[in-house]
């Protein structure tokens, strides 16, 4: 059930000069979400109107705690990054669809860039609990953008990295690392979240090799509840005829979609 729940900021961990992990305590959110889902909130006094969407990054249900990974890109994210410990926010959630675990015998391969890394920490926690080891490809500009790398390693995941400036791992984009993995694992299940160029590249590769691919899409969101229709993605489901398809809501039918359903060319500059 969705709730609009008071959450208190109890801890913060700096991840990079402009990103941090914020830990909140709240009655039910940490136990009621599934990996890939998000919550909408705004910090008091930030001077903004609308709430902003954030993926739930990790949870410690026994402590009623969950975390959000926040990268400062504007006023809303800045206010959250500067929120004093002990202050509260109202979190509307859990919202949206979630990542489905890989089908029996398929190897999970995760491709994540920037804040797109956030939803995969809890997803990998749940994979680890089921005894699965995902291949995690992390991308960023520089080494410090490879958020949570050590956390993925600690969970036993296999991690490979790419940075644009070569300061850590492969020099180049993270999708450069994908073909080798797809060669290695014939039966794979792809997951991706991050900048839209990256998502499209992963989707192309997945389509070429006919690998199932779940993608989490970012959109500006007004409500998160399926009511403003502001967050749409043009999709065509297998059962829909060639010429058809429709705008579906990233907050309700997404943010996690089957990549093959997305008609990328219908969003020239969606954000």
């Amino acid at each position, binding site marked *: *059930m*969705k*709730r*609009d729940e008071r959450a208190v900021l109890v801890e913060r961990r700096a991840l990079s000069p402009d990103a941090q992990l914020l830990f909140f305590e709240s009655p039910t959110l940490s136990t009621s979400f599934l990996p890939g889902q998000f919550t909408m909130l*705004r910090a008091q006094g930030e001077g*903004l*109107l*609308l*709430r902003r969407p954030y993926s739930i990054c990790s949870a410690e249900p026994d402590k009623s705690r969950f975390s959000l990974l926040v990268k400062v890109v504007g006023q809303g994210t800045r206010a959250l990054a500067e929120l004093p410990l002990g202050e509260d926010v*109202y979190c*509307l959630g859990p919202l949206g669809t979630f990542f489905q675990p890989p089908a029996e015998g398929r190897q999970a391969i995760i491709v994540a860039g920037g804040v797109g890394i956030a939803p995969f920490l809890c997803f990998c926690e749940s994979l680890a609990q089921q005894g699965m080891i995902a291949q995690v490809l992390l991308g960023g500009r520089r080494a410090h953008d490879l958020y949570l790398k050590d956390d993925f390693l600690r969970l036993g995941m296999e991690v490979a990295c790419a940075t644009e400036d070569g300061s850590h791992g492969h020099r180049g984009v993270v999708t450069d690392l994908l073909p080798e993995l797809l060669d290695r694992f014939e039966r794979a299940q792809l997951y991706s979240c991050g900048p839209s160029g990256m998502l499209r590249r992963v989707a192309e590769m997945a389509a070429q090799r006919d690998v199932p691919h779940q993608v989490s899409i970012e*959109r*500006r*969101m*007004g*409500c998160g*509840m*399926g*009511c*403003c*229709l*502001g*967050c*749409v*993605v*043009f999709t065509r489901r297998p059962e829909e005829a060639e010429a058809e398809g*429709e*705008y579906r809501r990233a907050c309700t039918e997404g943010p996690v979609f089957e990549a093959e359903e997305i008609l990328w060319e*219908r*969003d*020239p*500059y*969606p*954000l």
Partner: protein
Amino acid sequence: MHPDLSVEISGLSLTTPLIAASGTFGYGTEYRDVVDYSALGAIVVKGLYLNPRPGCPPPRIWETPSGMLNAIGLQEIGVARFIEEKLPELRGLGPAILVNICGSTLEEYGELARILNDVEGVSGIEINISCPNVKEGGILFGCDPDLAARVTEIVRAGTRLPVIPKLSPNVTDIAAVARRVESAGADALSLINTIPAMAIDVETRRPRLANVVGGLSGPAIRPIAVRLVYQTAQAVKIPVIGMGGIATAADALEFIIAGARAVQIGTMNFVDPSVWSRTLAGLEDYCRRHRLSSISELTGTLRAEGAMPSGW
């Protein structure tokens, strides 16, 4: 004693004066988990045409100072699917159900009115006249007093339900439009719809909305909306339903004092779904403090004596 917060709008009895605004409350059930529906007197569902419409490409929304822009392009599922798939669930929830109808032609409005007339659970029709008239080069029905009146007449002829034209703020003289639709048979009026507006990403030089122009809503427009409600309520005898940026009981009271019988809330429900219970509690508290036995006593009680409105 409990003050009476119920209101009556041309035969339509609402348990509270708070109404969910069209396009901001989906088909009515989406907020079930988080909104206290007992605080709502009615729900106006998302604007419906005869047939489904795909809507505009994204980006569709943008935040502005104390406001939001939207250009959804009236994405909707068509009246038939609404009646079949959405209405049954909605009927049981408590608030009265008003359907917001849109047309590309006069005839389409008439057809929708006839279809909805006999549908169980529909308590009234709000006419969205801020729709482009495809037969006349896309001019909005609501920006031309003649067209607005003709839409109202045709809907009036098609139904026994209360008919509530929703006025566009984008006119030189709202009182003139209001009087025309009143004579054309409207039972009540609602206003304001969003105000045409736009924003630009200066780094890319692209509009923030794919549709270039969208509608501005939220607290930024409230003072404009209160003025339009005041002018409208003075021009007509039928009840007026006010909206535009309501976030608190004090905001709702401004509209009521300016002349509204009931109010709608849109954008602020996105921001804070507890706006309904908070606002209703605030209205009740106000009635008590001001010894009003019914909220309806407050409608149109602005003390403007001595004021001589002129240019400014």
